[in-house]
């Protein structure tokens, strides 16, 4: 199976606080991986290290056979290959919905305006926001903003999409619309790496579930294995705590 990103011995410290410890982890093409774990276990940091929003303290990130942590590597080109969806949406407030999905394509990928708009419209339709192209971010609900953020990331046509708790900042009644979109994307064969607290969603769409605890990958496996027969005591405890809520 082809690995889209392959992480070897990744570590990250903030000062002398070691947040990620010797992480070995990879995502295969077409695979949907869900990362679960309690708050503060390093899930966001792992995602942010993968697209270099945080600089890893050690280890390697192999993409297309090259270690992108080498000094001479073009990190900007690499980042276009990873789509990122944030908990807080982070839409560009100076652009409308269409502009949000077009600006990166034009400025970074140097696509023409017409091409960029065509691509953007395709993905805005996928997330069901094609009717709102002239709306400004502040005029949208949380769920709508997040769907636009997903379309913005998809418009760059990345190899893998990273989601960092995409529904955690949403009102409960808007969680469904975002998860539905993500499920459709998963079914379409997109490679996805999703940090989530939605256990039902993880069970449903994940090909593989990764449980993180205190900066290490404590256990990983198929959803059945992790949710029904976890081998680790801490996995069992975490699931008991989370599912009883």
């Amino acid at each position, binding site marked *: 199976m082809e690995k889209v990103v392959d992480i070897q011995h990744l570590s990250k410290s903030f000062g002398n606080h070691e947040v990620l410890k010797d992480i070995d982890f990879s995502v295969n093409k077409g695979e949907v991986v869900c990362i679960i774990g309690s708050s503060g276990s390093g899930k966001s940091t792992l995602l942010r290290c993968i697209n270099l*929003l945080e600089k890893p303290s050690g280890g390697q990130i192999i993409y297309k056979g090259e270690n992108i942590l080498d000094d001479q590597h073009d990190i900007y080109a690499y980042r276009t290959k990873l*789509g*990122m969806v*944030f908990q807080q949406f982070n839409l560009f407030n100076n652009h409308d919905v*269409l502009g949000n999905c077009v600006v990166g394509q034009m*400025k*970074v990928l140097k696509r023409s305006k017409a091409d960029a708009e065509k691509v953007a419209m395709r993905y805005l339709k996928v997330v069901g926001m094609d009717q*709102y192209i002239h709306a400004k971010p502040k005029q949208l609900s949380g769920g709508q903003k997040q769907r636009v953020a997903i379309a913005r990331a998809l418009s760059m046509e990345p190899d893998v999409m990273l989601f960092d708790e995409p529904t955690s900042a949403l009102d409960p009644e808007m969680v469904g619309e975002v998860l539905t979109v993500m499920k459709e994307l998963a079914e379409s064969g997109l490679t996805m790496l999703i940090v989530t607290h939605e256990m039902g969603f993880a069970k449903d769409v994940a090909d593989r579930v990764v449980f993180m605890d205190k900066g290490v990958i404590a256990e990983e496996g198929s959803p059945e294995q992790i949710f029904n027969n976890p081998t680790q005591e801490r996995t069992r405890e975490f699931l008991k705590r989370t599912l009883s809520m």
Partner: protein
Amino acid sequence: MSFEWIIKIILENGPMFIRGAGITLLISITGTILGSLIGLIVGVIRTMPMPERGSKRVALKVTNAILSAYIEFFRGTPMIVQAMVIFYGSALAFGWDMDRLVAAIFIVSINTGAYMSEIVRGGIISIDRGQFEAAHAIGMNHIQTMLNVVLPQVIRNILPATGNEFVINIKDTSVLNVISVTELYFQTKSVAGNNFRYFESFFVACIIYFIMTFTVTRILRFIEKKLDGPENYILCGNQMQVERPEDMLRRTKP
């Protein structure tokens, strides 16, 4: 009587007042624009992320030190004194005979630049980290992030402060009469020096200053409203929103 004198002064010296007001506007508009550009550039440089090591880090540190010295110095000294020092100092040190108007615009520009730098820096810092990160995440570098995401928002946000600087500049160019720029205050002084009607002459100047600042304030308020765009958006009924009229013609024609 005063009122008759005012009419008489306006009729006799109208062109002088107008020319003075023109020069005042020229200096303050050019100074505000150039100053804002200086402010934008300095603000962007001062918010650049510090490289972790290497010669780039040293270069940025040195540049930042020079820029903060510039800001502190020009904000910490009166413009009237700067005008004297720069105009006479350049003559003494380099033997330059600076054109007085050029000197005036130069002084107002770097003065405004010092204030605007801090305003711009504040504006950049106030944009939430998330938008920087989202821009970086789609592969934009610092300059692209600034040009396409951050600065458009900063410019909108600092527009009121820029307008404020503009109004201040209209009023403060009056101190440039110390280097004999023929702006409105200087012209008024000449008029009053001829007719010895100080109150009436300066009363006319006062009204002209007020008309200028009031008009500028209104225009800027209007521009702010325009930039904010409509309150509401229109839902698009079908999937052809990004089509140009030409495309639509082509599509509908068999």
